[in-house]
């Protein structure tokens, strides 16, 4: 288990992280979510020991601590690749830095190369590959040494739908009892599928830390879709917390499910309602609501 204990970090006058305390258990894929500037990258950089917190500390398991550099895999948001080098040379270089022998590299990399369909690109310069294939090369170099701590920052960038599925499956297959995986992505739908747990950050503060299953069981609001062809301003409707326009109507959030009948009556006097549906909120809805509330 990794423990963040009262971590704070400021850059000049900007507070990037404000008293963050969170425990991350092995065996889980943990989604680190938040809008731009929320403090996600700073949190990950502190975890990677790239920067030190102003206050607080991170406690690592002894096995990870003893051989830190060889036990972590980090996939940054930007492509950290040498564009003029060949794919195979690049992979070998980073595997060496991670302490793999040549035999170990071939043993571990071969199945991954096949899964990621990179076989025919091994002798090509990285700069000549498509964005998606570059992302796959980057992912391969991040996981080839079986790291105990895996940090994936936007792993789906540049991937088409086929490769999204391949990478998605690979990340799922990496889940193991002694591995900690942190996933930061703006594709919240993928986070919902992949993650066991999510951490929401906003303005450097931890605003939610919960298992995905708990998150939905423990909802503080209810969501309905009001299908209508008419335009309407929901600001004036009593008991509606917030709303968004969707293709064929509106999606509204309310605190008390008993309020829905009153809301429908109110709306029916002004607009023509085609259908009212209760919907299950997604992590994205919960995330957006949290962000707007805080």
């Amino acid at each position, binding site marked *: 288990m990794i423990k963040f204990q009262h971590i704070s970090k400021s850059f000049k006058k900007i507070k990037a992280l404000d008293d963050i305390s969170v425990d991350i258990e092995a065996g889980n894929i943990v989604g680190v979510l938040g809008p731009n500037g929320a403090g996600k990258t700073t949190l990950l*950089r502190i975890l*990677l*020991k*790239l*920067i030190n917190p102003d206050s607080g500390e991170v406690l690592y398991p002894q096995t990870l601590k003893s051989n830190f*550099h060889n036990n*972590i895999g*980090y996939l*940054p*948001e*930007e*492509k*950290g*690749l*040498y564009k*003029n*080098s060949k794919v195979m040379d690049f992979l070998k*270089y*980073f595997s*060496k*830095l*991670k302490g793999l022998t040549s035999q170990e590299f071939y043993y571990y990399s071969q199945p991954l190369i096949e899964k990621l369909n990179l076989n025919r690109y091994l002798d090509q310069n990285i700069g000549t590959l498509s964005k998606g294939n570059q992302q796959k090369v980057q992912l391969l170099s991040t996981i080839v040494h079986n790291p105990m701590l895996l940090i994936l920052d936007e792993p789906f960038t540049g991937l088409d739908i086929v490769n999204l599925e391949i990478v998605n499956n690979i990340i799922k297959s990496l889940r193991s009892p002694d591995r900690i995986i942190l996933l930061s992505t703006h594709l919240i739908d993928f986070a919902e599928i992949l993650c066991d747990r999510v951490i929401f950050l906003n303005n450097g503060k931890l605003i939610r830390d919960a298992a995905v299953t708990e998150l939905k069981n423990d909802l503080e609001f209810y969501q309905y879709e009001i299908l209508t062809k008419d335009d309407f301003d929901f600001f004036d409707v009593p008991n509606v917390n917030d709303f968004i326009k969707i293709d064929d109507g509106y999606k509204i959030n309310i605190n008390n499910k008993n309020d829905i009948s009153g809301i429908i009556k109110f709306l029916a006097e002004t607009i023509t309602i085609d259908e009212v549906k209760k919907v299950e909120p997604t992590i994205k809805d919960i995330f957006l609501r949290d962000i707007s509330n805080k």
Partner: protein
Amino acid sequence: MNNIFHIAGWEYFQKVKRISFILYLLLFPLFGFGLIYFPQLLSKNEVSQTPLPVGFIDYSGEHINNLKHEFDSNVDDNFQPEFILINFGSKNLSGINDIVEMLDNQDLAALIQIFESNIPSNNIVVSYNSLLNSEELIQLEFMINKAVNKSLLSKSNLSDSLLSAINPNIISRKIKTTSLVNNGLNMIQFTIGLIFVLFLSSITIFSGGLFIRSLSEEKTNRLAEILLTSVKAGELLMGKILGLFLFALTQLIVWGAIGFFIMNEFGMKNDFSLEFFYQTLFLVTGIFLNVTIFISAGSFVKSEQNSQQINGYLTILILLPLIFIAHIINEPGSLFTSFLTFFPLTSASTIILKISSGTFTITSVVLYLGLQVLYFIVTVLITSKYFKRSLLIN
């Protein structure tokens, strides 16, 4: 420790394979050779129109006739003699100082002195000034050798038929030569110093510039972050220094080999003196220190534009000894020369030029060498303190 070698190997092979590097590696010596050889060719053409006056003092009194014969036989394509021999007599010569003054004033291009000695290798001295180029000096030595061989052979008891069968060119002795260029400055030593400083400057500027740009690239595409999560910052720094040093050394070795090849092909003298050894030593330590400084500066680069600016500033500093070469040679003890000697980026070049001017002692060489090591240690210590942080500035 292994990681340092992995990084050094990667840095080295990634850069040494570049086409731009291979072209630069091969074209630069041609350019340098042209720079040195072209003026000689021009001067040769000029000289061929006017025979060069060469003084001769024969203390043994045995060689004048043979040497005169050699000078008369040595004519250019227009049957004009290349040299005019001025015989200053033989035994009991007075006024040697006046003759040396003529040489200093360039009324003579060279002065040949043959002393009485039983060992022919030790008794010939040729003093010359800048009127004589290296090719003409070689020609002069060849003629002297031939004339002396003929004199020695004629003194033997061999029959006339045997004497005519012996080729006097086959015995070649070492002739002591003394250059009087620029009031006592050894022209060959000066040329070597100049070439070394050119090597040091261009190697540093090319290699250093390449590394500053690659460091800037590593920072902007977050490769630096990945590297720092894979190895310690100190290992990354040392690996990069070692890789860049090997890269720079490759240039030096290839250029050195090309230089020796050219020297041999064109019959240039390659006597390796103690000065040459010291200059080589400072060339290598200079490269090592300069690449370390470039990497140190490169780690603070924030963008491609910023890398070009920093590269520009460093290049100007590196070139200072070349810009002020005349001042360093003529006034090796001046305040400005001392500043250049003690300023890290210019110290190696300045020391090489000071050695060329003959103003050095063993103590000063040891002191300067210690200084180079000290600068390297201080640069590494300062850089390692900020290297990680500066690589993450983005």
